[in-house]
């Protein structure tokens, strides 16, 4: 069953199309991936679904559990259970990790903070009282952001480049947290250009220049992506649709 439907969504900035008539379905309890080269529109798609202020002027519609969320702002969508983990998480001067996570958890007690920190592999005693600022590495902030997402118990999680800026041990923790989210029944949408992350999904979409090029089981999309998109052969091609078709793609 589709929990989220993107229906013919187009989005442009300064007359340049970033998303071009995208139609996609994301299914309840699945780990989906949206894969594509740099500049394909992956992060923009996540921002549009989240309803970030600069991404509200798209055409088409977005349905969550069959209802349009187009008129909801960010917190309205979050209250439905939709959330986003940024590629580069924000820093907060002075804000303690525990307060940040508690806020996401609806101000639950310390046990919840400890539970989610442990799930992302961070020792609660070492991190609970630290400030979420530049004294933490990018990888630590990424895991703390994921902990805040786990605390929220979301229905649909979008993770933008979950492996960027993190070491091997951290990425394994992130993968296990993704598995935990799936086990809890959440739908996960991984935004990535990394085959290693793509492999963690059940189903994938390949987008290029804001258009859907391929979709299906991850192994199939991974084969196409690894074989034909790395490097991207038609970047800056004058007619991208024709170029993609020439490469064997099926622009929808």
């Amino acid at each position, binding site marked *: 069953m589709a929990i989220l439907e993107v229906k013919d969504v187009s989005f442009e900035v300064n007359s340049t199309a970033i998303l071009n008539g995208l139609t996609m379905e994301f299914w309840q309890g699945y780990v989906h991936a949206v894969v594509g080269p740099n500049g394909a529109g992956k992060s923009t798609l996540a921002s549009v679904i*989240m309803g*970030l*202020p600069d991404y509200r002027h798209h055409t088409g519609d977005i349905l969550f559990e069959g209802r349009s969320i187009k008129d909801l*702002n*960010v*917190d309205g*969508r*979050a*209250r439905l259970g*939709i*959330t*986003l983990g*940024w590629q580069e*998480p*924000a*820093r*907060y*001067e*002075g*804000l*303690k990790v525990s*307060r*940040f996570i508690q*806020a*996401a958890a*609806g101000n639950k007690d310390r046990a919840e903070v400890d539970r989610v920190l442990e799930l992302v592999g961070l020792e609660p005693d070492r991190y609970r009282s630290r*400030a*979420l600022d530049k004294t933490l590495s990018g990888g630590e902030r990424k895991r703390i*952001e994921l902990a*805040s*997402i786990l605390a*929220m118990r979301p229905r649909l999680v979008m993770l933008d480049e979950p492996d960027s800026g993190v070491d091997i041990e951290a990425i394994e923790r992130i993968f296990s947290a993704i598995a935990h989210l799936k086990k809890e029944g959440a739908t996960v949408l991984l935004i990535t250009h990394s085959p290693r992350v793509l492999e963690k999904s059940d189903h994938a979409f390949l987008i290029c220049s804001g258009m859907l090029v391929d979709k299906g089981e991850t192994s199939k999309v991974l084969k196409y992506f690894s074989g034909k998109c790395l490097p991207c052969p038609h970047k800056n091609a004058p007619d991208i649709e024709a170029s993609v078709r020439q490469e064997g793609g099926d622009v929808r």
Partner: protein
Amino acid sequence: MSDELVREILESINLHRGFDRDTPHVVINANKVLASRVVEGLVIEPEELPDGVRARLRVKKGRKIAQPVHLCFGMLPSSGIQKILLDVEIEDEAEVGFQAHCTFPNAVDVRHLMQAEIRVGRNARYSYFERHWHSDEGLVTVVPKASIRLAEGARFSTEFELLKGRVGVIDIDYRTVCEARSSAEMKARIFGRLDDRIKVRESALLEGEASRAVLTTHIAVRDDALAEIHNELVATAPYCRGHVDCKEVIQDRGVARAVPVVEVRHPKAHVTHEAAIGSVDSKQLQTLMARGLSEDEAVELIIEGLLS
């Protein structure tokens, strides 16, 4: 009678239960010294004036005062002037930390004026944390001025906090001179509301080789409050290092102004500054909203962190 006043002052700063009278302390109401206690190595000589108190504070050479020294400056009457004149001498190799609480719970028209001369001796350590507790009426004028001199190898830190109640009018002016290998860290955190007026001037002159200073000012203003921050760092000797960090968040019709001055007069000195003024960072805001917080809740949490 003085016990009752001490209790009232301590109650106004939520310290009446946890306050340990065995710790070194001085409690002042208006121009009266209500209570004091010293420990070996610490000398406190208060003198009552018609409109305040003059006090000489001294830590003897090489003495390390283990417990923080509590200073409670209260003004329980609803109006009047309270002058606090401090002469502080931390002698060579000595160490002490002060926790000062200034409270004006009934203020209708109160002026609290502090003038401090502080000398920190060679390799001495001196920290001063000052928390203000104001009423919600904002009818207080606070003018703390301090002139600080750090001898070779001395370490000095000061932190000013005014987060509870209305600011009213505040005009801080702290100036530090740093001799060789000394370090100064000065922080101010203030939340202004309604028509509060905030003026902070912090300066450090790094005149000794390898001396260091960090000036940090974090301010939030909302409604019609106004904040003006002057941070000045001047480095004149080799291997001096300094940094100015000024962050001001404004909401509603609040106005914030930052005037950072960094001046370097030696090619082997290095001073940096960063200033950020305006609304809260959009990414911080969006992240919290993507966790289900409303915009107002998210802003409040971000400001809570900034001023923590």
